[in-house]
């Protein structure tokens, strides 16, 4: 709060005024009114901050000031701390093609990650330190070679196109692929050692963000995505930076063109080499990747499990079919046999019945003879013939069962009247059944 300037005059101190430490508290402030503040505006935010953290005005000011100071310090720290290699300081400026621009700027730990702002600030700092005028003032006769290096580095790093060209061949940013034996030393080493390699290679990708190697807990999709990405890597890496330059004084166009062609070919070749290199790298990593093995095993296990299941199911089905077939066959056979048996039995019975019928018929015919051909006294041939004909007709009309019944009645019966009675009874029953007409069988009635 700004100081209020009051224009009125203060009364002079009465001569008899005394107080302890020149201060006297007389009365208290009148009871306040509780009102609600409008929670709006920067000053309210400050008030809320003070109230919520229970700070007084001066405390809050101090804390705010401290935090704002910290911020600027944070921004400044970082790039300054990098040491300068004395060998680097001796560099010749004309050899700029082989200089590490990031190291010159003191940004070797950032490299391609350095933002434009960082480069700007780093450049400013380096200029302040290495400006030739300063060196001259301190009496050292060092020349301005390193300063030129700095300027060259700045030129390249501040130009996005040139910076990309340099980044493409920046050896300082390369990460050597780890040796196989290092990787196999410890189980976690694979991710620890290969991760940074892919992170470094990923800087060339046109597609960002680049999937990272991950760890042993990565899912199958992630791992697959990772390898798909790297096998299908779209790189912006180019090799113009390594072009051989034609000396400026040779104005020969033919030579220039020749050099250009040569450079182009070299670029292409390098690009192809780089692509192959990366491919081989990814392949070798894939070969080392335990996760791939793990996933394969899991997959095959799953597949096997499925296959086994399927086979078992098939087998079961087959067995079932077999069993059913056998059962069917058995049933069919049994049925056939039973049929055959019943058939034979029927045949036998028929034959037996036939025999019985023959026997019965014979008995009946015999009974006729026994009864003296139903004639009292000796029968003439005419009468015998008529009786036999009638009995035959009767037999033909009778069923096998009736034959049996009649035969059993006649069997052993030698009484003529009884035999005749049996015949007559049979005739009447047949007449009743409508098989024989009344008076047809004259000799038997």
């Amino acid at each position: 709060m700004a100081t209020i300037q009051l224009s009125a005059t203060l009364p002079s101190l009465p001569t008899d005024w005394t107080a302890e430490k020149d201060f006297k508290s007389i009365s208290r402030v009148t009871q306040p009114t509780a009102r609600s503040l409008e929670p709006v505006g920067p000053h309210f935010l400050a008030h809320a901050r003070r109230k919520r953290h229970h700070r007084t005005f001066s405390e809050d000011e101090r804390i705010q000031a401290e935090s704002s100071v910290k911020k600027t310090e944070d921004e400044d720290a970082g790039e300054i701390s990098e040491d300068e290699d004395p060998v680097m300081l001796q560099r010749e400026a004309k050899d700029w093609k082989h200089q590490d621009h990031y190291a010159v700027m003191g940004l070797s730990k950032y490299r391609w990650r350095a933002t434009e702002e960082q480069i700007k600030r780093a450049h400013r700092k380096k200029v302040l330190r290495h400006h030739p005028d300063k060196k001259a003032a301190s009496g050292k006769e060092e020349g301005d070679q390193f300063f030129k290096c700095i300027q060259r580095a700045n030129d390249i790093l501040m130009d996005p196109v040139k910076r990309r060209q340099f980044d493409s061949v920046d050896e300082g940013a390369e990460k050597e692929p780890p040796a196989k034996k290092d990787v196999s030393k410890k189980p976690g080493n694979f991710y620890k050692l290969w991760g940074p390699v892919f992170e470094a290679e990923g800087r060339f990708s046109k597609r960002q963000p680049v999937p990272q190697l991950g760890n042993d807990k990565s899912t199958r999709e992630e791992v697959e995505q990772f390898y798909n990405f790297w096998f299908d890597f779209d790189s912006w890496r180019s090799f113009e930076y390594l072009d051989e330059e034609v000396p400026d004084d040779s104005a020969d166009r033919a030579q220039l063109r020749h050099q250009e062609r040569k450079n182009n070919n070299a670029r292409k070749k390098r690009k192809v080499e780089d692509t192959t290199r990366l491919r081989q790298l990814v392949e070798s990593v894939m070969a080392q990747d335990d996760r791939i093995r793990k996933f394969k095993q899991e997959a095959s296990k799953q597949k096997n499990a499925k296959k086994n299941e399927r086979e078992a199911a098939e087998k079961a089905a087959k067995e079932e079919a077999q069993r059913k077939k056998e059962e069917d066959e058995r049933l069919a056979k049994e049925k056939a046999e039973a049929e055959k048996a019943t058939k034979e039995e029927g045949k036998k019975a028929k034959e037996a019945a036939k025999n019985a019928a023959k026997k019965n018929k014979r008995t009946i015919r015999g009974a006729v003879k026994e009864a003296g051909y139903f004639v009292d006294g000796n029968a003439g041939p005419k009468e015998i013939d008529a009786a036999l004909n009638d009995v035959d007709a009767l037999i033909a009309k009778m069923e096998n069962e009736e034959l049996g019944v009649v035969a059993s009645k006649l069997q052993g019966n030698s009484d003529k009247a009884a035999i005749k009675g049996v015949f007559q009874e049979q005739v009447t029953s047949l007449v009743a059944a409508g098989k024989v007409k009344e008076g047809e069988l004259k000799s038997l009635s």
Partner: protein
Amino acid sequence: MTSESAIDDTQYPQRTAIGLSFGNSYSSIAHTADGKTEVIANEEGDRQIPSILSYVSGEEFQGTQAKAQIVRNPRNTIAYFRDLLGKEFKDVDPSPCHASAHPVESSEGKGVAFVVQEKEVAEDGEEGEKSTLTVAEVTTRHLRKLKESASDYLGKDVNAAVITVPSDFTDAQKSTLSESASKAGIELLQFITEPISALLAYDAKQQLTDSGSSAPQDKIVLVADLGGTRSDVAVIASRGGIYTTLATAHDYELGGSSLDKILIEHAAKEFQKKNKSASDPRKNERSLAKLTLEAEAVKKALSLGATASFSIESLGDGIDFNLTVNRSRFELLGNKVLMSFTRLIESAVQKADLDILDVDEILLSGGTSHTPKIASNLQSHFPESAVVIAPATSATAINPSELAARGAAIQASLISGFEVEEIGASTEAVVTVTPHLTHAIGLVTGEEGFAVIVPAETPAPVRRTAQIVVKAGGDVLVRLAEGVREISVRTEDKATTNGNAKKDADEDEDEDDDSDDEPEEVREKVWKAGKVLAEAGIRGVKKGGKVEVQVNVAADLSVTVVCREVGGKGGVRGTVPAGKAEQNGNAS
């Protein structure tokens, strides 16, 4: 993995926050970037977007296009719905919606809805099914449109906003609005009241223009939000940039439409005078709608120029209508209404237990504030010490229609970096309810004089530093006391007023009539020292030296005083203990 980090990014998206002024008649959107606040125009180039939605054969229109539909398609045009939000049907005043879709009862009287022909009418001319839209749904659609406009303008997806509401918006209304906003894809950061928002925008502008003084002045500001259908007035104490609302006054019938009505009456009478046979255009719905639209345009034109003209094709019975109105005629016709604005504003001052002399600034906000007569009435009614900030009286005034949206945008930019919980915690009563000084604290000067250091209605804790010149030098007594403001009235010759009156020859003719007869009453604010709080002696002050007094009022109202000579050594330090009985109201 990268995919995971991408998901994380979407979980905490960058907030793009805007300020939204959602009015009953107009809405506007503003955005603050790099300390500059800009009011965003929608696709049609409007910075004041009518809060109207219209449905025409299956298509949704908003803003100016929708407003035009009031004439042709009034029943499918929804207007003035903000004030219906979150209210029960029985509490709703449907009169502003008379010319548009009428509100109907929904969910058994618990809500308000509109029935409109939202879908396209079938080819065979059969009436299609009508849909019932609740006010909340209408609001969601409106806000979504506003959000789209802002997103298009900024090229970023707007996902958060500070929304202004009238000072009498209830919690139910706020929660309904909050729901509607979240349905529209807007994260509601905070509600701020319209007058406060306007003041915030004004103060931010002031701070930019006189960037020398870092801290804002202590002042009592009267913010009058004069809208389309209603007017709200708030008396706000601004103490070190912290605002406290002392009183509010509302008039739900007084607004821009009251002024429009005057012009409608006038034009309708003129029309009938010119065309004896024609029927009264006020009786015909369509004619009235045309007249209303034109009256609003004429009123706006009269705020800028001295004359404006009605021009309506086929107002009634196929007769075209042309009429030129000049500003003085309008002001004469509308004198009664215009004066009622002044009365409303004065009533707010009385409600706050203040005198009009206590008011330091009068900030006019809302579209109706463009009307010059309202500002000049206020200027003549209030003492000269009060500055009226309106386009008519101050060339640097911000467009009053944009004030609320601008303030909301500033607030949005201030808090958009915070978590929602943090914002909630800061707006809780624990933080906002603060003891405010009942009396001013200052120094007793001379015999009975009093110089204010901490004015009344200042929230505690507060720290103020004052310097006072000691001309004579020597030992001085610093007597800290509570001050009492009194209004002294004395009669004086009118000569002084005449001198002032010459400045604005136009407006004070009637004033002269009043003041010619009776002597002018001069009212003055006089400070009297009341209860003495503490005394301190400072010895051996150099001639012409300065004494610095720092007053530190703690939250428990104990007062720490540090007095010293500027540039001198040592100093006197002492504390007035907090009153035991006076400790209530302390939140911390």
